[in-house]
């Protein structure tokens, strides 16, 4: 058990935009996998307005791209193909943040309806074995390594998860969490960052991670 005194860190208060990123163009990719409003609301609380769009030009011209997602992998991939986002996303050079299903779609392949994904991360997404309740739903801790995403976040902070599929540990893992088995709660490769948990629903810790992505990555 953690010591209570040590587990109540002080966070820098959000909602003051960094002057260097004040005019950043942040795009949230809109596709048929919800939760876009929650992500844009979290950014508003941090003082940032995001453009919500599936327009390829808008996405290409963004300074930061966020790829949220709640839903099912194969239908989401189908939509990405129809809109040619499946070709555009891997070519992007600006900082890119996949969230939840967004992380899984950046992997190679998902067991969820045997879906070929975007292959940014060379790992497969598997379903949790039914040894405990699935989905993994609720607050669990992340153990992270050095990454800009986690600056000013205390290690082993709690964040909010809702998912039935996971990416295993690999060289791209920057945070891991244990539920039934250890899995990647965050991945990074070059400009691509991804979180299995929902920063937009993870209290002050989640807001700090989003702020770091926008201001430091």
């Amino acid at each position, binding site marked *: 058990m953690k010591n209570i005194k040590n587990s109540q860190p002080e966070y820098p208060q959000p909602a003051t935009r960094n002057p260097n990123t004040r005019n950043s163009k942040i795009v949230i990719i809109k596709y048929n996998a*919800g939760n876009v409003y929650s992500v844009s*609301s979290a950014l508003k*609380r941090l003082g940032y307005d995001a453009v919500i769009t599936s327009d390829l030009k808008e996405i290409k011209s963004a300074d930061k791209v966020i790829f949220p997602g709640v*839903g099912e992998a194969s239908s989401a991939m189908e939509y990405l193909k129809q809109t040619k986002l499946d070709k555009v996303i891997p070519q992007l050079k600006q900082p890119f943040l996949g969230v939840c299903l967004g992380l899984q779609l950046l992997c190679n392949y998902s067991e969820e309806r045997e879906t070929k994904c975007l292959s940014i991360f060379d790992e497969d997404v598997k379903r949790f074995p039914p040894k405990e309740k699935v989905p993994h739903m609720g*607050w669990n801790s992340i153990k992270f390594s050095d990454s800009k995403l986690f600056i000013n976040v205390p290690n082993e902070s709690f964040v*909010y998860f809702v*998912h039935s599929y996971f990416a295993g540990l690999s060289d791209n893992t920057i945070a891991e969490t*244990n539920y039934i088995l250890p899995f990647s709660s965050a991945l990074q490769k070059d400009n691509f960052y991804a979180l299995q948990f929902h920063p937009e629903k993870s209290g*002050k810790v989640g807001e700090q991670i989003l702020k770091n992505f926008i201001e430091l990555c």
Partner: protein
Amino acid sequence: MLTKRIIPCLDIKDGKTVKGINFIDLRDAGDPVELGVKYAELGADELVFLDITATIERRKTLVELVKRIALNINIPFTVGGGIKEVDGVNELLDSGADKITVNSSAVNNPNLIDKIANRFGSQCVVLSVDTKNVDGIQKIFTDGGRTETDWELLPWVTEAVERGVGEILLTSMDHDGTKNGFALEITKQLSELLPVPVVASGGAGTMEHFVDVFKNGKADAALAASIFHFGEIEILELKKYLNNKNIPVRL
């Protein structure tokens, strides 16, 4: 380690909290959003908003409220009350709700569960169950506990989970309002039987009751209303207490 969740529940009517809110430092105790923000700051893990508005304007008011909640609150929340069709669900999820909960409408039309789960995923479908012991049989009630149905607890929740429910919010009418503790036996029974999380509700009176429902009732989460609203139990204190009793909580 996955932690046990503490969930305050707010009853809403016409966009306002209904009754029994007694926080001295709230500007407007009737504003669900301000109250929700307060609970989130105090360490609530999730919030449940139950809308009991009966007017035609209900749906629009609720969607507006859900948007305001999502804009201001940084933890997950569930919305319920009068959801009878899959179309209304879309609007609530798009407005930032994480989960919706159905109760009477699912009993009257179990197919509603399949429809919502197939379209939006099981993770966002919470089944609220009101149950009461009638002559030794654990029966299901609808219409806010007014109508006894033919369903018994175990067959109903089992069928509902098969149809796609992702979480059970279990309220024992025999315990609700008594402050004598949660219904440990049925909570444990459901939690061990079902592959989905079980939220225990009804009967919370002391911090020890929460220890019981997590340790002996095997609940994944515990929900309460009045003891939080009247400040009888403060959420952060409760979570520290649970932590000292070796129950994993987010602090």
